[in-house]
Each structure stands twice: as C-alpha cells, then as structure tokens.
C-alpha cells in the first residue's frame, strides 16, 4: 500500500501541476522514483492494485476518462486507503463532469491524506474540493420523518436530506409510492417537497395494568368473602337445624346474621370496588413510536397516538 501511495502521490502531483498550467492537458506520467539509498534494491513486483492504478493513469493520460475511472475503481477496491487513487478517482470523475462524485472522492482523499500525514496530497485534494463544492448542484428534500427517501436508488438518511449533492443530469427521487425525476446542472440549488407520509409504527401502551391488577385482587377477595359467607351460613344453618336448644340455634342465628352478612357486605364492597377500578382503569392505547424530526428550522422528536 505504501508503494501505491507513493506512486499515486507522484502521479497525482504531476497531474495537478500539469492541469493547472496546461489547462486540462494531463501531464505525462513520471516514472516512479525509488527512495534515496535504496537504488540498489530490486524494484518489488507491482501488486494488482498498483497495476490497475497504472492502467488508470495511462487511460487518463489518453483522455479515456471513463475507462480510467473504472481502473481506479478497481484499484481502490483492492487498496481502499490509497490517497493517490482516491484523488485520481476525483480527477477522472471531474473530467467526466460528475461534480458531486468527484467532490466526494476528493473529500475522501483529503481525509485519508490528513490521516496519513501526506500534506501535499491533502492540500491538493482540499483545493479541488473547495472549487467543486462551490460548483456542485445541491438538492434539499423535505419529507416526513420516517419516510424512506432514495436518490437514484440510494437511500438518504434523514440528516442527509438537507443537502444532497448531485452530478449534473437527471436523477430519480423516490419516497414511498412517490416518484420524481429532476434534472440538475452545476450550480443549481433545488428543493423538493415530498408529500408521502411516514408509515406509522404503533406500540401498545397499557397504563391501566396496575389498576386492573388491583381490580382483580379486589374481585378475588370479594369472591373469597362471598364463599366464606356462604360457608359460614351453610354451617350455621346446619347447626341451627340440628339443635333442639333455643340458645344454640339462636347463637347460630346471630353468627349467620352478623358474621355471614358482614362477610357478604364486605365481599360486595370489594367486588364493587374491583369493578369500579377495572372500569375506570385507563384503556390500552395504541400510540405511534417516537420519530425523529429533521426539518429546515427544527430538530427533535415527535410522538403521536390514538386509542
């Protein structure tokens, strides 16, 4: 990778100088210069990435920009971090008039050069990026949060919609069932408002579950008290009818009257209370999930619901 990086730097710098002086005439490729002190060492066999890069350079020099881009793309696929290849991808796309694509490659090359502490590359990439950024066509897409927006089949994140950089030409913008085509030229600043609503995602929220549990407990307690009342009364009735002694059956009458009835009344109160709690408990709600909002003048989240 280092070899390719070194090669790419030299080629790219040569090209930059040539284009700046010869007005789009690519400079002839300079042969690689081995590092000082290593002249005696045999040159290592080029890697497939280097081979593809060299081919790209040759095509670029020949004015075959599209084919050059293809070779550079092949090379960057094999060595994704090569700053020189990144810059040459920017260059070939710029030659093709793909301003946005070129800008993206130059930015990436700038970042990578900075990371690799390759100051000349970084500077060259930056200069190109500044020029292209001022020229690139941009599109602002206004769409509802949650709506999937695609530009030429590529999905935009909600933050990316504020500024979409486009190559000149016709582009397809999709949002749900909505389908638009726009044509842009360098320097255009367009806005597009999409009316498609976001698909709603609902969640069930049950704020009354605790209250309903209390209701179940109350009704259960009431039922148990009913059972106790009935049991006591049946036992009392049995004892009442089994005794000849007035004091015995009058005692059981009192037990059934005050004990059984009290249990029944308390049980009834528990059942009524339980039913009241159940009826008054908040119902299950179906609410929409929280969705982020990114718009021209706001950033936040939204929640909506219905029941």
């Amino acid at each position, binding site marked *: 990778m280092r070899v390719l990086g070194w090669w790419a730097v030299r080629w790219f710098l040569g090209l930059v100088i040539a284009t700046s002086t010869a007005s789009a005439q690519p400079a002839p490729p300079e042969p690689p210069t081995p590092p000082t002190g290593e002249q005696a060492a045999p040159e290592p066999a080029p890697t497939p990435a280097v081979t593809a890069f060299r081919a790209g350079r040759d095509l670029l020099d020949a004015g075959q920009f599209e084919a050059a881009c293809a070779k550079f793309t092949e090379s960057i696929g094999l060595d994704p971090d090569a700053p020189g290849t990144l810059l040459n991808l920017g260059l070939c796309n710029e030659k093709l008039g793909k301003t946005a694509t070129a800008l993206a490659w130059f930015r990436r090359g700038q970042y990578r050069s900075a990371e690799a502490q390759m100051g000349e590359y970084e500077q060259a990439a930056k200069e190109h990026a500044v020029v292209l950024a001022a020229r690139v066509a941009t599109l602002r897409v206004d769409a509802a949060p949650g709506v999937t927006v695609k530009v030429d089949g590529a999905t935009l994140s909600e933050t990316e919609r504020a500024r979409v950089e486009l190559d000149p030409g016709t582009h397809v913008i999709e949002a749900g069932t909505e389908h638009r085509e726009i044509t842009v030229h360098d320097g255009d600043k367009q806005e597009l408002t999409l009316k498609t609503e976001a698909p709603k995602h609902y969640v069930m929220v049950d704020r009354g579950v605790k209250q309903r549990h209390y209701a179940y407990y109350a009704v259960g307690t009431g039922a148990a008290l009913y059972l106790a009342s009935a049991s006591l009364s*049946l036992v009392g009735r049995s004892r009442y*009818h*089994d*005794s*000849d002694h007035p004091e015995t059956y009058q005692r059981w*009458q009192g037990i059934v009257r005050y004990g*059984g*009835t*009290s249990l029944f*009344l308390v049980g009834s109160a528990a059942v009524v209370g339980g039913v009241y709690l159940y009826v008054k408990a908040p119902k299950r709600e179906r609410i929409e999930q929280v969705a982020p909002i990114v718009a021209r003048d706001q950033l936040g989240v939204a929640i909506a619901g219905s029941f």
Partner: protein
Amino acid sequence: MLARSSVLAVMLAGCDFVFGVNGQPEPCELRSFGGATRTEIVEAEEFSVDWDQTFAVFSQGGLNWQMKLPDGTPEMIDLGVYVNLTFALAPEGTSLFFTAAIEPPTLRGALRDASTWAISAEVPRGTYAGTPSADAFGPRRVLVRLRYELDEIQEYEDDSGHWVAVGQPITVRTQTAPNLTPNGLTMVYSALEPELGPGVYAQSRTSVDEPFGAPVLLREGKARAAQLCGRCQQLYVVGDGEGSTLVRYDR
C-alpha cells in the same frame, strides 16, 4: 341516625333470612328410620331420655333406674312403691311424669334434686303423659291420655305451675300418650293403627297454636314409648324385638 341504624339492621338481617335461620322454632323433618343404625343401650321395659341424650330414666324388673347415657352405670331411684307403667322426662331432665300401676293407673310427677327424686310435682288430669316441651320455648306443653280405655289425648299448658287444658281432645291410637319434641311442634308415638299397621308414627305442626298434621310412619313394627331426639335424627324405642331393650336408631 335512626334511619341509618335501621338500614344497617335490615342489611345485617340478610344472610340469616336467606338461609332460613330466622330464630323461630320449626318442626323437624319427618323421615323414615328404615335402614337407620340400631344401637342397644340397656335392658328396659319403659324409659325416657332428656333432650341432650345424656340422661335416662327407665324401669326394669319392676324397679326404677336412672343412668347417664350412653354407657353410664344404672342407679336405682325411688318413685314410690308401685310399679310404673310409663316415664316422661322433661327435656331438661329435671322433672318426670310417670304412671303408677294402680287401679286406675295414676299419673304422677317428680322433681329431681341432685340425685334424688321428690314426688311432689303437680300433674295434669289424665292417665298417661308424654314428654313435655322445654321451658325455653315458652310455657311448657304436654299431651296427656285422659283415660286408660279411651284414645282421647288432651294437650295441657303450664300456667305458672298449674296445668291448663288447651283446645279440644284429639284422638291418637296409641296405648299411652304421645311424646312431644322439645319445641312442642312434633309428637311421636307407637301405635297399633288398624289401618296403617303397627309402627312408630309422628305428626307435626308449624306452631303450638296449630293442629297436628297427618301421621308419618317413621318405623314399621311393634315398639313402645317412642321418643324423638336430636332434631328427629335419633329415635328411641323399647320392645321392638325379642325381649325388652332400650334401643336408639340413628339416621
């Protein structure tokens, strides 16, 4: 305040009302003792038991005895020189009607004081008396056979120590007098009914002011001195088989 108390009282009267526990005495359910469990207690010719079934007076061999139930030791008691033909203990076990075998048979009464009996109680006019009702249900009632040779049964009520006839005599085909249950609402007797055949019969009424209903056969066959206890769940008789034994039937 009064209205609130009234509402509370009405509400608290709920379960006893619903379950038929109204505090009023009711006649017990009369059902057959066919198939009931038979338990022999003691050799006896006549007998009577209290309502708790813990105490009995009986005669055996011409002598009078008392014993604690179910398996106490019989103790001889002194009820005079005559042989006694019937016994009828008050439900509380504190007083006793008995008929001395003299000519004519004479109804007598005795009061129990600790372990002895004092023959001094006032008795209604008649020959045989059945077991009376308990004091707890109001003035005590008793059914008395007026004459030895007639089937006329007269009901009496205790009026401050004096027995007062209530209503007109009724005809009950028994050899002695029907026994009342403690609440006075059911009478039971051993009968030699020519139409119904020999057996133990019972008749009930809804209150002491009402006439008794139709007889219900509790147990077929010959028996004497039938007495219902425990809300008609136990039936005591003697002479229902060979010899003369006090027997209890439990259903």
